[in-house]
């Protein structure tokens, strides 16, 4: 599967991540939870790639596997022309300098016993980049960048609000001048008015520093707003991939349709008049996924072939891929 860019910043090819399920006292591996199963996509330099899906669909697992917080079960992760899947921890370290992560919960991702200055500056210590006054200057310039006064450097995380803490998390991710930032639900834990502040800031930073984002969220309206391209995931599989405007205007996969139609719209008239597709039932378990197409158990268009053959992710129009038997004829 070739993408449209010859030289993407990040390329994920047939990525698999299985978690063994150990049963009994003998701790034998009896089965696997296939959290991510054969997913491929690529991200260009300067692009924002959105990954959406419901909880348990594997979107966070992908993020953690790319940055090698998890080991890869199969497939390739190519970052800046370098294969990451088999690197050791020591070999990974210089790569992590170019690839940083922002987490969902700004309360849990900051060490409560460190001052904000030390939290932001810790990467500098780890990579032995700057000391003393230099270090302080770098920290201050970052605090300035995220809109906090440099006098806050000596305060502790509990003294800040959720939005401010998320800014601190962003500053920590930015301090090593990374190329790729993986945002794992960076705004889900924040209030609406604060969400917009953070999203605007992420966009300003992207323009200023030429950053590339992998943006993971379940809030589709926000993902659509911030992303250039979006991948929709269901139960460990990528089922649709398109430019974000295209995905909203002509989506093909029944799951994408249902997902988009279940976003609550903050407009009573539109909300009353629109055609809602409400899915029956729940997402099946990833330990024993349905045969063939994984969505068939909840799909209204399910046919015989859906249970037999797994649909491939195929191109339906320019830069638009869908994995569904309805369109893959």
């Amino acid at each position, binding site marked *: 599967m070739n993408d449209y860019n010859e030289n993407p910043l990040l390329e994920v090819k047939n990525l698999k991540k299985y978690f063994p399920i150990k049963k009994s006292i003998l701790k034998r591996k009896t089965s696997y939870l296939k959290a991510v199963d054969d997913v491929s996509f690529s991200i260009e330099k300067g692009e924002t790639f959105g990954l959406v899906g419901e909880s348990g669909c594997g979107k966070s697992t992908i993020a953690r596997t790319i940055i090698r917080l998890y080991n890869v079960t199969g497939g390739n992760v190519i970052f800046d022309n370098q294969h990451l899947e088999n690197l050791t921890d020591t070999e990974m370290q210089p790569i992590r300098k170019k690839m940083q992560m922002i987490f969902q919960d700004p309360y849990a991702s900051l060490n409560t016993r460190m001052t904000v200055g030390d939290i932001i500056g810790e990467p500098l210590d780890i990579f032995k980049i700057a000391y003393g006054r230099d270090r302080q200057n770098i920290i201050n310039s970052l605090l300035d960048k995220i809109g906090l006064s440099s006098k806050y450097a000596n305060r502790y995380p509990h003294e800040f609000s959720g939005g401010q803490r998320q800014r601190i998390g962003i500053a920590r991710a930015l301090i090593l001048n990374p190329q790729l930032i993986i945002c794992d639900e960076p705004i889900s834990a924040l209030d609406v008015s604060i969400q917009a502040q953070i999203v605007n800031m992420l*966009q300003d930073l992207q323009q200023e520093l030429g950053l590339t984002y992998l943006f993971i969220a*379940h809030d589709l309206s926000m993902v659509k707003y911030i992303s250039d391209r979006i991948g929709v995931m269901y139960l460990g599989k990528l089922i649709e991939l398109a430019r974000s405007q295209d995905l909203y205007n002509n989506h093909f996969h029944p799951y994408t349709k249902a997902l988009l139609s*279940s976003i*609550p719209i903050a407009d009573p008239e539109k909300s009353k008049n629109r055609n809602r597709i409400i899915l029956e039932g729940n997402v099946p378990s990833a330990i024993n996924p349905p045969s063939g197409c994984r969505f068939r158990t909840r799909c209204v268009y399910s046919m015989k072939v859906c249970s037999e053959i797994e649909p491939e992710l195929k191109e339906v129009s320019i830069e638009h891929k869908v994995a569904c038997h309805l369109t893959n004829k």
Partner: protein
Amino acid sequence: MTRDIIKVKNLKISFFTHLGEVQAVRGINFHIKNGEVLGIVGESGSGKSVTALSILKLLQYPGVIKNGEIVFGGEDLVKKSENEMNKKIRGNKISMIFQDPMTSLNPVFKIGDQITEAILIHNKISRKNARKKALEMLELVSIASPEIRVNNYPHELSGGMRQRVMIAMALSCQPDLLIADEPTTALDVTIQAQIILLLKELQRKTNVSILLITHDLGVVADICDRIIVMYSGLLMEEGSTRDIFYNPLHPYTKGLLKAVPTPEISKENRLLTIPGKPPELLNPPTGCPFAKRCPYVMNICTRQLPPKFRESEHHYTMCWLLHPSCPIKD
């Protein structure tokens, strides 16, 4: 005119912490009509959940209802004893569902037993009939094969199903009012859509009044008849869903509505933000609490709390911009 099912008058709630008195709710008035869905929107810390808890008198120390009346069925709930609340009101006349269904169900009892228990407490019927009723309730909330599910423990159910069980339990005694505190926040979008649809259907079937607390404007637009907007313990704006969405008057309501991206908005347009953050409620400002973040702030805003101005029959807002002699006009 339909009658009011509940009337909250000048409610004030404070938390007495070691730092001092945190004024979480600072004098709010509202009512819910029979068969109506009222939404309370506001950000974290605006006092929306405490208001809901105080209706059932479930506030825990150091939270105290300092002042006000909650008139329900002709009686003031604030004056009722714990015993009376338990026997007559909680779970019977007014019931509540919470954000996280996992923590609100008892993990060591089967869900059937939990619903049966709720029914037995408030009705004089046999255990067998109560169980039958529990089955009916599970059917009502569209749980597939209820005869099997009654014997499940909460951990065997998915998040969406647990919330259905909670709703079944809450409605099992035909309450007059259902308080739903962020009932869909912990759920995925497709499951959220299922639960909202269910609530709408049940509301139509049973004509129960619903007080829905949420921060999601999309959810209120979908289900509510009327909306109140809370900000730092005050009721900033009150009106029909159409009023709030199509003719918002308070700058805070306007800001909230603009901060949510609509499907039409593209990356080139920036999202409008509300700069700053809400004030500390330990020492709330004397003027309007939104003054510091408000783009239209005037001198009077920082000095004096605005009164309630009336725009139309059911549309009120607390903002000096509505004062007849205000120099700023749209």
